[in-house]
């Protein structure tokens, strides 16, 4: 075997590299959703937030020449959507799932509408850091080109876990998510906590979107998101509302997404639609296997509508 072709050995390497590349939006959206859900609300609108983040991040990077400014604006756009979600949900008799679907639509529509002028131009991209310097194989070096946002996400996951467990705001968040009544009785501002959690969740989802347009695949168009935002919501359930598990689950989903193309590149072409649907089937299978009609999911916030 010559050193330019790894053949079948390239498949696991491609899946690993693909997992790192494809997982970042999953990671950010799921971390954001995790925070929001810990406060007792579900935000299905993160798909719209993701698309809006991708568009606004790209537009700002193009206009200013600074991709990091794009990431920031994408996050801020997400924050605004999060605030809108939380504000509407704080009204009486409003179903948080419905609000999420509405914002998914609005976010996608606005992004498509405002994003028309940015389909053509090329915007400055986020950098990647090479971790493959130790290897003489070009494939290994390419595979280990890790983007900066992935690293930030990888650090963020344990930090969030630690924060949820050990800090004052983490505990407040969890109390609000477990029982709004108890939290109120203890003097915590339930709506404000949820507002902040949803805004933070929106920020992270917006950043996840900017990754799509500013790093991988690295351009803005209307088919950019193929449901990563909504899949990430399912991923949180999969990960049991644990930020570190979200990280591993995001890697798994990313790897599953990379498996199809990797197998095809060595000549296995059959059934690619079914391969592409594998992550959804897997999520469903795990939800079925781990749920129970009698008690709620381990780790699930009691106030969360989807687990009641």
């Amino acid at each position, binding site marked *: 075997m010559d050193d*330019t*072709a*790894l*053949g079948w050995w*390239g498949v696991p*390497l*491609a899946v690993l*590299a*693909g997992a790192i*590349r*494809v997982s970042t939006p999953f990671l950010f959206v799921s971390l954001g959703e995790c925070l929001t859900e810990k406060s007792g609300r579900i935000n299905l609108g993160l798909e719209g937030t993701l698309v809006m983040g991708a568009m606004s991040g790209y537009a700002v990077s193009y206009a200013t020449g600074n991709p990091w400014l794009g990431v920031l604006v994408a996050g801020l756009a997400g924050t605004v959507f999060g605030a809108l979600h939380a504000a509407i949900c704080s009204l009486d008799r409003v179903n948080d799932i419905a609000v999420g679907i509405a914002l998914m639509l609005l976010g996608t529509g606005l992004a498509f509408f405002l994003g*028309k002028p940015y*389909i*053509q131009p*090329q915007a400055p991209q986020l950098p990647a850091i090479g971790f493959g310097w130790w290897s003489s194989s070009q*494939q290994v070096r*390419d*595979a280990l080109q890790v983007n900066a946002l992935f690293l930030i996400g990888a650090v963020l996951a344990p930090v969030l876990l630690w924060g949820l467990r050990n800090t004052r705001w983490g505990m407040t968040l969890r109390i609000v998510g477990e029982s709004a009544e108890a939290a109120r009785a203890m003097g915590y501002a339930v709506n404000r906590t949820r507002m902040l959690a949803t805004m933070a969740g929106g920020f992270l989802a917006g950043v996840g979107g900017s990754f*799509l347009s500013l790093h*991988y*695949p*690295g*351009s803005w*168009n*209307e*088919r*950019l998101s*193929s449901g*990563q935002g909504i899949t990430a919501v399912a991923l949180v359930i999969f990960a049991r509302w644990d930020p570190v598990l979200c990280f591993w689950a995001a890697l798994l989903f990313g790897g599953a*997404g*990379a498996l*199809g*193309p*990797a197998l*095809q*590149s*060595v*000549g296995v*072409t*059959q*059934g*690619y*639609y079914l391969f*592409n649907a594998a992550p959804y089937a897997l999520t469903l299978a795990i939800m079925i296997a781990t749920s129970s009609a009698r008690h709620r999911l381990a780790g699930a916030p009691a106030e969360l509508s989807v687990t009641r």
Partner: protein
Amino acid sequence: MVDRLRLSRRSVLGTMTAAGGLGVLGSALPFAPALAKDLTIGFIYVGPRDDFGYNQAHAEGAAAVRAMAGVKVLEEEKVPETVDVEKTMESMISLDGASLLFPTSFGYFDPHMLKVAKKHKDLVFLHCGGLWTKGKHPDNVGSYFGYIDEAQYLSGIVAGYASKSKKLGFIAAKPIPQVLRNINSFTLGARSVDPTITTSVIFTGDWSMPVKEAEAANSLIGQGVDVLTCHVDSPKVVVETAEKRGVFVTGYHASQAKLAPNGYLTGAEWNWPKVYTDYVKMVQGGVKPPNLVRGGLKEGIVKTSPYGVAVSEKARAHADGVKGQFMAGSFVIYKGPLKDNKGNVVVAAGKEHGQTDIALESMNWLVEGVVGSLG
């Protein structure tokens, strides 16, 4: 402003004829005055018209028509291949007075465009990609398409010279005849340079899947592929990924040269401005457009992108030589003996399928040298 006034006059006209009953719409009468003044032409796209690809190529054609005298161009983008396109055509006809329609996506043809064309026998419907058949399809319908695989064959030659690893990559949407023909022609072009060259193909499953396309490009590069090409609606992602990873790329649909200043070798492009302005001139001159239009480099329906900086003199000479033969109409791509990639003979020795051969439009095999299989 003048434009808008004229529009409102026409919408009044549309409402009047509609109030007069649908039957009237079928006759040519209400539109005769509009026809004499200016020809209203509707272009319908399946995706966004600035996609650096399929739809943009058509929109560039529409823009050329817009610049002509005595025409009014209507455009609608992102129209799904459902009842939506039927209603879009009807709406262009009854609300805007369109009398010549260009629905540009393959899936518009059967049953949608055929249904509408049967209702409006006095109007002209010209469809991109379909295969008009006498007796089976209405006479006011035409279909046109180009042998873009000629340009893909030339891209294959250029790619064959550029590749060091002798591995090429092709990212395709779906294993349909149009796509397979491009993959095969590209591969045959490359193997005419060096018969040891292989083309690995990845099907993404849909016409626009940016993340899958990028992932496919990276996977192929990871397997040692050093020249990429594609057949998806928007090649932007594939071309940009190739440039980022430092491999060569050949374009498709429109020119993506400016997206990859280093790695862009050449590309297979549509030349719709010529096709559309020709059609419109015919209709304006009172000539009935032919029902079936096919053509390649020679007829000017397709063209190649100018060579990029990385294309060697040898490659240019070889490709230009074959291009000259295409222009003279003397080159045959599908010449026996040809085997598919499972070893079956698909074109027997001594047999030739010229470009106009309809048999090629239902291609369902991958030629020897292609790594991959059909779904």
